[in-house]
């Protein structure tokens, strides 16, 4: 099939970018979305043009590397998928596909569709860890943890850190990301003790890096490839309130 593409091209962080039109013939429905971009880049290289820069790694939805805003939605159409899991079966012959990078002050564009997401690492460094020296792995049954809590912590730990929540949020807020990281630690006994400090420090860093504030819109949850729920944000809010006392 033949598709039309509008892709954000930007040479460097400081240069002015813009949407560039491409027409791509010979796209197969069997291609993944990233394979379609690989195919586009092959044709661009053959024509002597610069290929489109985009991030990808595992291509099986677990690394959190891919990050495209496709037709107005992070990771494109489809519930709980990453861009690499998006197939060209989602599109029809003659469709126009608009591809933009994540847009947030805290995620500056490096080149074309690649943004700098190191802000997430900085938030983690501010408090997303357990500072107690836990020593060697304890015997598994020595700290009993209710199944429900273990499950909830595990659900939160599924966060890839891809940044789709920030991209989807009209406020470019990182609250879903921060709350998932808070939950995965706060729900378990080893992490629970530092919850207040963690919430305060991670939020302070999030604010400092220029992310917006959550206004409970819910777009993050709807677009999260791992289905992280905003009930984690309520837990983060509770931890933050508790940090004042």
């Amino acid at each position, binding site marked *: 099939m033949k598709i039309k593409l*509008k892709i*954000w091209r930007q040479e460097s962080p400081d240069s002015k970018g813009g*949407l560039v039109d491409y027409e791509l013939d010979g796209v197969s429905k069997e291609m993944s979305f990233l394979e379609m971009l690989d195919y586009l880049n092959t044709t661009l290289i053959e024509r002597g043009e610069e290929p489109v820069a985009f991030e990808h790694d595992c291509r099986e939805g677990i690394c959190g590397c891919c990050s495209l*805003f496709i*037709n*107005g*939605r992070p990771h494109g159409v489809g519930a709980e998928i990453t861009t690499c899991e998006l197939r060209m079966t989602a599109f029809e012959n003659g469709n126009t596909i*608009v591809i*933009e990078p994540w*847009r*947030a*002050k*805290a995620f500056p564009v490096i080149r074309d569709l690649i943004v700098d997401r190191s802000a997430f690492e900085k938030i983690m460094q501010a408090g997303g860890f357990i500072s107690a020296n836990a020593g060697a792995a304890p015997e598994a049954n020595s700290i009993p943890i209710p199944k429900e809590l273990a499950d909830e912590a595990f659900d939160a730990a599924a966060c890839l850190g891809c940044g789709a929540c920030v991209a*989807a949020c*009209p*406020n*470019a*807020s990182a609250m879903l990301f921060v709350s998932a990281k808070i939950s995965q630690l706060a729900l378990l006994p080893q992490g629970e003790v530092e919850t207040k400090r963690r919430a*305060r420090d991670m*939020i*302070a860093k*999030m*604010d400092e890096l*220029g*992310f*917006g*504030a*959550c*206004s*409970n*819109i*819910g*777009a993050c*949850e*709807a*677009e999260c490839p791992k289905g992280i*729920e*905003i*009930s984690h*944000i*309520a*837990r*983060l*809010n*509770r*931890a*933050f*309130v508790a*940090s*004042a006392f």
Partner: protein
Amino acid sequence: MSTFLGASIGRKLIVAVSGLFLILFLAVHLVVNLTLLAGQETYNMVAHWMGTNPAVSVIQPVLTVGLLVHIGYSAYVSLSNWRARPQPYYWSDPAGGSTWASRNMLLLGGLILAFLVLHISSFSIRVKLGDAPMADIGGVMTKDLYAMVTARFELGWYVLTYVVAMFFLGLHLAHGFHSGIQTLGLSDGTWRNRWVLLGTGYSIVIAAGYMLLPIYFFLRTHSG
């Protein structure tokens, strides 16, 4: 404490607490309004009691401060949220599960504020300045607020503005109610849908309750 209230969540807590306080006030205001249906004497008596009750004179400045804080902090938070995305998307599809109201709370708040200016200038200020007709209740001369209110509700443009404003208020509350609860951290996976349902129900009752009176008095006057 300054780092607590200065943080994004701290600022939102202020918006949430002031908002939930105003939400409670709306219910009290509606109950007072509904006494209009009991007739001129009852309404004027309630209004007279409200006007002379010392508790009301304490609550009034608290309410004013609550409102100003809610407006000020909402605007402040929204402004910093705009700064968080300096370059907008070429194409943004909000299909992903968020309501229109949740994305336009500042706009809705602004429209409600515009109505509030009209509302306060047409009632409260006139009453405060003594520019109100008088009525005789059991031998005591009091301000005839009933006549004032019902006269307003005979004006088509005012009734229409009122009803539209209450529709906006309903939308604002439909998001604001559960959003405030969530910001306070009083929600979880189980309670979340209950709060949304309760908030939606509450906003419908409030909006419909306020709309009822102008429509009723307008129709009563104009149906012959």
